[in-house]
Structure formats: structure tokens, C-alpha cells
């Protein structure tokens, strides 16, 4: 069978639709990526995991090696994805809590201390069941404040940490974190952030 290509003038209405679509794309109003619905937990788990891993693998980890504007760009991209996971996948606490803590790390790395502390605090507020994430977030908050010579605020986080996690039967890694928090509270281990560079 022979086919024939026919070129016809495009109807005016179609041109308008195309123009509107193009304008929409240019202004960022194009079709948005819709997260899987809550009715499909398996897909949502996989989607949250994929987003978190993408943020970590493609942007956050490489940002540590990058310098200047390239680092800023990578950190921005990682932060956007972490925020997406934390905001849109709150029903997937494993990934949402990690994303929130990682977002705190990004702020801390940029020395946005207040913003980092705010985000670290949200880990326990939003995902109180994620014990280890809460532990890491509180320890990170305490260390960040301690290194920033804000001991009174750091003390609050260390004390919260000890109240919740200082147990004789805790896992070895938890016991090590607790030991460090106690040492910091007692004025030992006062290493400034300059040593960490």
C-alpha cells in the first residue's frame, strides 16, 4: 500500500493550543510529575526511595567534591529533591526522615546554622518513631551548635538525646553517640568546626 504525506494549513485553533502549551512549558506550568497515590504503598515506597537515592547519589555526594558554583548548583538540586521527599512522602517515614536529616546536613554544610537546626528539629517532630534518624538529627544539631559556640542551645539537644537514648541495653553505635553527647556536655571534645575542614 502506498501512503501519502499531505501537508495542510494548520487550523487557527490548533495553533493557539500549541502556543499556549509552549508558553506553559516556558513558564514552568507544564505537566507536573505526580507522586503515586497513597493507595499504592509499594509504588510510593519505591518512588520515595528512588528520589532520595537520586538526591544522594547524583547531587549530594558529588557536591562534597565540587567547588564554587558547581557545588552550589549540586547542593541546590539535592536540597530540592530532599525537600520533595520530605514534603510529598511523609507516609514513607524511612525515606522522608532521611531526606529531612540530609536537608539539615546541606544547610549545615552551607553554614546556614539556624535553618539546619530548624530542619534537624523537624525530624523528631514529624517522624518520632524513626529512632536512629532522631538520634542522628539531635546529635548533629548539638554538635553544630557546640561547634558554633552556642553551648546553651547545644545542651538542649544533648539532654534530649540522653533522656531518650541513654539506656544500658542500647545498641553499641547508640552507646557511642551517647558517650560523645555526654563528653560534649561535660565540656570535653570541644573541637571547633575549623578542625573539621
Amino acid at each position, binding site marked *: 500500500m502506498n501512503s501519502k504525506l499531505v501537508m495542510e494549513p494548520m487550523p487557527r485553533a490548533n495553533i493557539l493550543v500549541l502556543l499556549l502549551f509552549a508558553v506553559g512549558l516556558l513558564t514552568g506550568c507544564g505537566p507536573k510529575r505526580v507522586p503515586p497515590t497513597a493507595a499504592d*504503598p509499594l509504588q510510593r515506597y519505591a518512588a520515595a526511595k528512588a528520589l532520595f537515592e537520586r538526591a544522594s547519589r547524583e547531587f549530594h555526594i558529588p557536591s562534597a567534591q565540587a567547588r564554587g558554583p558547581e557545588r552550589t548548583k549540586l547542593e541546590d538540586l539535592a536540597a530540592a529533591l530532599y525537600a520533595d521527599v520530605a514534603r510529598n512522602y511523609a507516609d514513607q517515614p524511612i525515606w522522608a526522615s532521611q531526606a529531612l536529616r540530609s536537608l539539615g*546536613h546541606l544547610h549545615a554544610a552551607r553554614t546556614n546554622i539556624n535553618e539546619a537546626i530548624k530542619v534537624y528539629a523537624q525530624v523528631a517532630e514529624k517522624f518520632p518513631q524513626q529512632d536512629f534518624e532522631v538520634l542522628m538529627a539531635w546529635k548533629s544539631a548539638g554538635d553544630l551548635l557546640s561547634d558554633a559556640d552556642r553551648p546553651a542551645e547545644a545542651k538542649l539537644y544533648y539532654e534530649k538525646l540522653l533522656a531518650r537514648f541513654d539506656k544500658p541495653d542500647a545498641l553499641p553505635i547508640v552507646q557511642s*553517640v551517647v558517650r560523645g553527647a555526654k563528653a560534649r556536655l561535660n565540656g570535653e571534645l570541644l573541637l571547633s568546626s575549623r578542625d573539621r575542614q
Partner: protein
Amino acid sequence: MRTPAIFILLLALTAPALARVNVVTLPGRDSVLLTIYNSVDLTLVKETRTLTFRRGLNRLEFSWANTLIDPTSVEFRPLTHADEIEVLDVSFPPRVTNTLEWRINSEHAGEVLVEIRYFTSGIAWSADYVVEAAKNEKEAGLVGYVRVQNNSGEDYEKAQLRLVVGVIRLVEQIGQLARRSGARGMTEALKEQNEKRDQLYSAYREADLLFDKKVMAGVELKQMIKENLSEYYLYTVGGRDTVPNGWAKRLPSFSTNGVPITSYYKYEKERWGDRVVRYYRFKNDKPSKLGNEPLPDGDVKAFRHVTDDALYSFVGRTSVKYIPVDEQVELELGDDLEVMVKPKLMNWVKTDMRFDARGNVKGWTTKETWEVEVQNSKEIDVVLDIRRSFSGDWTLRTSAGYENVDATKAKFVLPLKPREKQRFTYELETRHGTNATR
């Protein structure tokens, strides 16, 4: 080549504290031992590294980013100069993601052998076997393999492998927990049940200590060995193998020749229709040149030598469940067209009719005469096990030997010579209604 997901960076903070930090060393693993639990998706990883410490405060980073390592299980301990090394703190550096940093005080300047251990998921193992039956199907060689599959996100180079077979009660509980959690998976189930997870880790760590003691006691490691630890068993695969992420590796586990086997054929209409199914049977015991350890679940492929110069033919494949020592195993290897069973109903009558006062039938007896033709088209002797099922109050009359398997089944066992054809008949009497006496 991918970058290892775990990196360990040893930094020393020399006094005074404001001095710049020097990278002292970036050592590779000296050894890595994977203990893979079959019952749950969990592997205990123990790696040793030789680190060069400076006197004073040292920093050591460990990253689990993009792996399936459970960070709550990570442990650090010095194996040498242990009384001079102390972990002061663990922190989480913000510059990198999913990384922890140990702050370690050392009174020793120089090399220290350290062990880092943790649990990861994503590593699985399975067993498989190859049976090579002799031409006469009286004995066979049995070769066992283990296949280790690594999807943990981390490469393990030159790893020593320990495989745990069997179940422990705690593992079953965790397994049920994971199944209840459904799509959320093991990781989330474990995280939500911290207490149970901690118990699991604690049990596995204790088990691991016992394994180590056995090994220290001089148990030979160059071949598969058995460790009997209460309810489960441990195999150590000889040698070391690299198991990269995303790869599966098949390793030989044992090889035994001259295992006595019984080859036989079964016919049972209710199970297999008109097909005759071949079985190999052997025992996992010392007289059978086995019995050194239980055999884990696995797939089996069976071959038979068909010529004297070791030409093989494929016999069939099946899977076996966990086989304890001294247990007998039957391998169902599929149908064999060279052995035939053809039962034929030759006659049928209804007799001994009884009627009630209204003339309705209240009791009767049927008599069926069956002829069973059997044929062995093979060039070797075979043993044929024919099972016939009956219902009601029945009696069998035949000159052929048989035994009752249970109240509804009789078994005829016939040895057949090569190319032999036989026939036997039996008469089945079944009493119905008031004629039935049982």
C-alpha cells in the same frame, strides 16, 4: 569499575587542636567475612583493616550511602592495642550523606588492626546440586554448589563466606514480621520493631562469637564444614571469593562419588494421570558417603551416564527441601516414556442386590476385573511402584503381590528386566449400601 560505597578515611587531629588535619592512611580491607542467613534477608559483615593511628585524637569515617547496610548495627573495635584505643564519640558529618565519624583516642602511635562489623540486607545464597547417576542407576556422584547473590550496593572483595542453614526461633519471628509488613519490606519492619531487631542482632552476634571460637579451635576451613549450633548449622566455604555488587557467584561446596541410589518408577493415576514418574532415592548418611552435614534446600539437576565413555543424558530436575543428616531423600525427576503402565478394565458386574420392603435397592456389590500391562523399554533393570486407589468397603483378589498403603490405596511393586513386558490382573470387589461391612 564502581566506587566502593563504603569508605574509611582515617584522619588524625594532632595537638594542638587548631592544626590542620592530615590524612594518615586510606587502607583497604585486610579481610572480610560474610555470614549470610538463609532464613531472613540479613548478612553479618565483619571486615578487618590495618589502620595507622597517631597518638591522640583520630577520626574515622564510615559511609553507608546507597547501600543496604543498617547503620544502627555498625560497630568498631580494635583487635590489637585494644586497651590503648577508645571511641570517644560518634558524629554525623554534614558535608556527606549517610556517613558517621568515629572520634577515637589512641595512646598508641602506629598500626592497629581493627574490626568493623555491621548487618546488611541484599545478599542471598541458595544451594543447588548435580546428580550424575551411573549407567545402571545403582550409584551416583553428587556435587553441591552454593550461589551467592549480592545486591547490597557494596562490593566484597576476597570475601570469606559463612552460610547459615536452618532456622532459629527468633529468625522465624522476624520473618513473620516482614511478611506482615508486606510491601514495606524487611527494612521498614525491622525499623518499626527496634526491640525485636536488637534481639535479632544480639542473637546473631552471640552466634558469631561461637562460630569464631570453633574456628579458633582449629576446625579445618578449606572445605565445607558443619557447625552445629542448637537449631541451625553453619557452613564455611573454603577459600575466598570476590562477590561484586549486582553479581551472582556459584561456588562448589562438596563433591562425593559412589553414593548408593535406588532408581524406581511410580505410577499413580490420581497424581500423574497416565505418566510414569522416575525417582532417585538416597540417604544423607555415612554409609552413603554423605551425612557430614544437613543439605540445604535447593534445585537438583540429574543426569545419567548412557555410555561407558561418560556420555550424559539429562534425566530431570527438581527441588529438595532441607535434608537433615540420616534422612532419606526422594528426587522426583519427571516422567519417563520408556516405562509404561496401562491399566484396563476387563469386566464389571453388579451382584448381591438387596431390596427394602418397598422394593428399593438397599445393598449391592460390584466386581471389577482389571488387567495391568507394564513395559520396560529401557536397557537396565527398573523397579515399578504402581498405586491404585479405591473407595468404600473393598477387597482385592490377585495373584500379584501387593500391600495396602492405607484404607484407600494398594501398592504393587514389580521389578522389571530390560525390555521386559508383564501383565497382571486383579479383581476388585466393592460392597455398597447395606452390603458394606465397614
